[in-house]
């Protein structure tokens, strides 16, 4: 109890000292993080390999590349992200300064996940540091090698008080959650997500929850099946299916089911060779508990391909199930493993209805040559994100917000969205102490005249479109004539014209 209180307390005191607020400091910390990734690449890859049996190449492209990209983006854009944003003013505030200041929230907690143990801890950390916060990092204890490495490395490169790492399991995390934070970003499952949000509610702490769900993958009859299946195979079986945005299950017409199976089998052969188990590019299930859970999902199912397993090494072969019933166990929970059920449905209407009856997923995939169909599926469903004609890829575009909706989560991050998630948008209006004349309109005692003036100054006009532009042009001409012919009364008339145009509400930028 004391340990968590101490760690968080120290981070808060360090934040209050103000040293993490300057852009220079934040850049320096981000540069140090970048150096850490460059210098310790071997150690990071080794830790991920130990946790997930992931080859160096996979680990590099799945995890390290993402972190380096996020770092480079943050360092490049930080000055523009952090700059105050001026806003449109109204007539009453036209002489004032009005802008939005992006300020750090304070002490942020990041709880990482085990499936991509490095990137899912680092990527939020980068955004939180960039936004000027102190950050308590809690990597997942299930990927224990990476957790230990992060705990060892971060203090060597970053400010120790501002960015402490806390390791431990459920009891330690529960303890940590009793402390007060200014934002919590949690990546994991919905059950624990609810616990995190309930703990946050006690302190009115905003949360970002990156959860999961069953991401559906609809394959239209009209599509290049070979290409579609290759892409699906890649996304499904990477990290042995342990990806929050992996295509969880396929929906397709019964007439193409067997072709889909054939194509996936062919692709699996291309990717992993005859003996998947000996391919260096195929990972393992993270632990025995998940191994048993996934195998349990195969009970009573029609196994079209795969099904082999080896408990000692937590190996489960890429497995395809056909003619799966929506009521079966494998369709109840997020699979998070290399098991791909195929459900057959006769029409896209049925598929859309099916998807909408279930919890909103983190990702949704649709494959078709028919652009209209893809647009329709996107418009008539809801999900965290979508990739059409591919899988996973929306995750890699940092200009897209990455997050869930409903049971799959709340909030989003990546790129600028991380910066905004970890910032407070503070509205600032700086007025003059002089110019008291205009204020008299709003002070009591009130009168109908004052009400009318208030309406004049405050009420935005409904946009009258083209007619308005014509009138504006006419007013401009009038103004030009007036200015030309009546130089001596220029000031007064110009002011009247300006006020009249303002009244009509089209000049809103001052």
């Amino acid at each position, binding site marked *: 109890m004391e340990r968590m209180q101490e760690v968080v307390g120290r981070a808060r005191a360090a934040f209050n000292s103000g040293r993490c607020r300057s852009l220079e400091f934040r850049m320096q910390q981000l540069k140090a993080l970048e150096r850490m990734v460059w210098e310790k690449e071997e150690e990071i890859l080794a830790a991920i390999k130990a946790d997930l049996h992931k080859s160096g190449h996979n680990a590099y492209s799945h995890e390290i590349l993402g972190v380096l990209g996020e770092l480079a983006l943050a360092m*490049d854009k930080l000055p523009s992200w952090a700059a105050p944003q001026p806003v449109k*003013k109204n007539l009453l505030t036209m002489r004032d300064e009005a802008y939005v200041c992006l300020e750090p929230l304070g002490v942020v907690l990041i709880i990482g996940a085990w499936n991509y143990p490095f990137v899912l801890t680092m990527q939020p950390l980068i955004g939180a540091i960039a936004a000027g916060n102190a950050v308590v990092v809690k990597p997942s204890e299930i990927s224990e090698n990476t957790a230990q490495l992060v705990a060892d490395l971060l203090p060597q490169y970053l400010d120790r008080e501002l960015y402490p790492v806390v390791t431990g399991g459920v009891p330690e995390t529960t303890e940590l959650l009793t402390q007060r934070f200014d934002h919590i970003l949690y990546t994991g499952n919905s059950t624990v997500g609810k616990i995190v949000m309930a703990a946050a509610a006690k302190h009115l702490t905003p949360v970002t929850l990156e959860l999961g769900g069953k991401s559906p993958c609809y394959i239209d009859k009209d599509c290049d099946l070979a290409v579609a299946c290759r892409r699906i195979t*890649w996304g499904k079986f990477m990290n042995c299916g342990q990806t929050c945005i992996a295509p969880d299950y396929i929906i397709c017409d019964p007439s193409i089911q067997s072709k889909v199976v054939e194509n996936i089998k062919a692709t699996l052969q291309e990717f992993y060779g005859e003996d998947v188990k000996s391919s260096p590019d195929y990972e393992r299930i993270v632990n025995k508990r998940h191994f048993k859970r996934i195998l349990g999902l195969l009970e009573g199912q029609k196994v079209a391909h795969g099904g082999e397993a080896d408990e000692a090494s937590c190996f489960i072969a890429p497995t395809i199930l056909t003619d799966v019933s929506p009521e079966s166990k494998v369709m109840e929970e997020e699979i998070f493993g290399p098991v791909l059920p195929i459900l057959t449905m006769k029409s896209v209407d049925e598929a859309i209805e099916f998807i909408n009856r279930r919890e909103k997923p983190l990702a949704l995939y649709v494959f078709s040559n028919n652009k209209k169909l893809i647009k329709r599926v996107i418009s008539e469903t809801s999900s965290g994100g979508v990739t059409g004609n591919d899988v996973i890829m929306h995750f890699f575009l*940092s200009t897209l917000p990455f997050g869930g909706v*409903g049971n799959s989560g709340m909030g989003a991050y990546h790129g600028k969205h991380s910066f905004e998630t970890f910032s407070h948008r503070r509205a600032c*209006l*700086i007025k003059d102490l002089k110019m008291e004349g205009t204020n008299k309109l709003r002070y009591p005692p009130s009168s109908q005249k004052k009400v009318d003036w208030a309406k004049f100054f405050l009420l935005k006009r409904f946009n009258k479109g083209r007619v308005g532009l014509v009138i504006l042009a006419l007013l401009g001409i009038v103004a030009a004539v007036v200015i030309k012919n009546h130089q001596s009364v220029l000031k007064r008339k110009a002011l009247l014209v300006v006020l009249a145009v303002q009244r009509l509400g089209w000049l809103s930028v001052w």
Partner: protein
Amino acid sequence: MKGLSPQILGKKKKKMQGRDMSCCCAAAHAELTRGVLCPQPFFECEFSEILLCKNELHETLNNLSHWMKDEHVDKSLVTRLDLAFIRKDPYGVVLIIGPWNCPIHLLLVPLIGAIAAGNCVIIKPSEITKNSERLMAEGLPSYLDKDCSAVVAAGVEETTRLLENKFDYIFFTGSSAVGRIVMTAAAKQLTPVTLELGGKNPCYVSDSCDVQNVARRVAWGRFFNAGQICIAPNYVLCSAEMQEKLLPALHKAITEFYGPNPQESPDFGRIVGDRQFQRLQTLLRSGRVAIGGQTDEKDRYIAPTVLADVLPSDPAMQEEIFGPILPIVVVANMDEAIDFINSRERPLVVYAFSSDDKVVNQVLERTSSGGFCGNDTLMHVTLTSLPFGGIGNSGLGMHHGKFTFDTFTHHRGCLHRGMGREALHALRYPPYSQQKLGIVRVASEVKRKDACTLL
């Protein structure tokens, strides 16, 4: 289940606004009293309940088609030929819980955004302001689609039961205590929330300022709606010398506004209920009553009151006042004022008055709050282009203008690719090799501006 076209709903809203304007005013008028003929000041009602609402409505109607459009985003090398955009999806069924202090405005402004974003809405007005509650319950259904919106009149118990249902978003305005209850209930369903709460908004007055102007602006902000607004300046921090100058200036401003006997002024409001009245009476036992202090229980009238030499431990400094009482706490200088502000919960707004820009900026930079207004009170909420929301105990999330639309919208990242160019994708497929990795590195790299591209 999709809501009706947001534009149709929006236009209906506007019609209702226009026609029922006087009706709304009358309801709010009758509200802050116990049926005695002392209305909420007409100007205040017109200003906050009607004008600001109309602004929001116009802003939304003017811009909705633009806000709703897919927002195309910059793409990487790998996605250069794809369609990448943010789709603005409604959440679904949203719950809006309104407070009693500005019973029309604080319900309609979020409602406008929720409808604009395409949601169906359950509206729960405050049960304390019965006339407004009735107006909403009778008025809204006659203008809005009955399937897509519903008004629920509910007290504490019923609201607790209402919160057991699953909503796709909850927007709550009220106290921090109830905010916690709402968020805890929302956590059970993983429902995202916006909480517009409150706090003690400090108002720092530096020694160099035009005292009379400051006094007018502070008095206006404090006594608007008889102090019952979440953004009112809650207490003043200033030096002892400034306190001596401020007191007569405040007295002059109050007399200018409400005359020698504010109880007779049609422009000064009343406390909403007996419970709130009694609570406020106990707060008067703080510091010394320098101005006002008179109360009339039958009328639920508390005079515009200024308490001087208030101590941080006094009752008036323990909770958000939400009444026409302005405590002045004496501090030695600006640094002490900033430390004082920072030692307390982060408020909804920080005010700072000074003719020296540097002082105003210092207070801004060294404190944290929902919003900030320099050299005036309340006015930052009249700009729909500024986000309105709290931080820490004063709330989470924000709204007003486009921010309301964004609050009730799920920003869905969408990538629409082609089926071609499969050869390029081969780089990402197993079996992996050092060569493939090299190409992938180059294609995904975000170049630093000052990085040398020759090496």
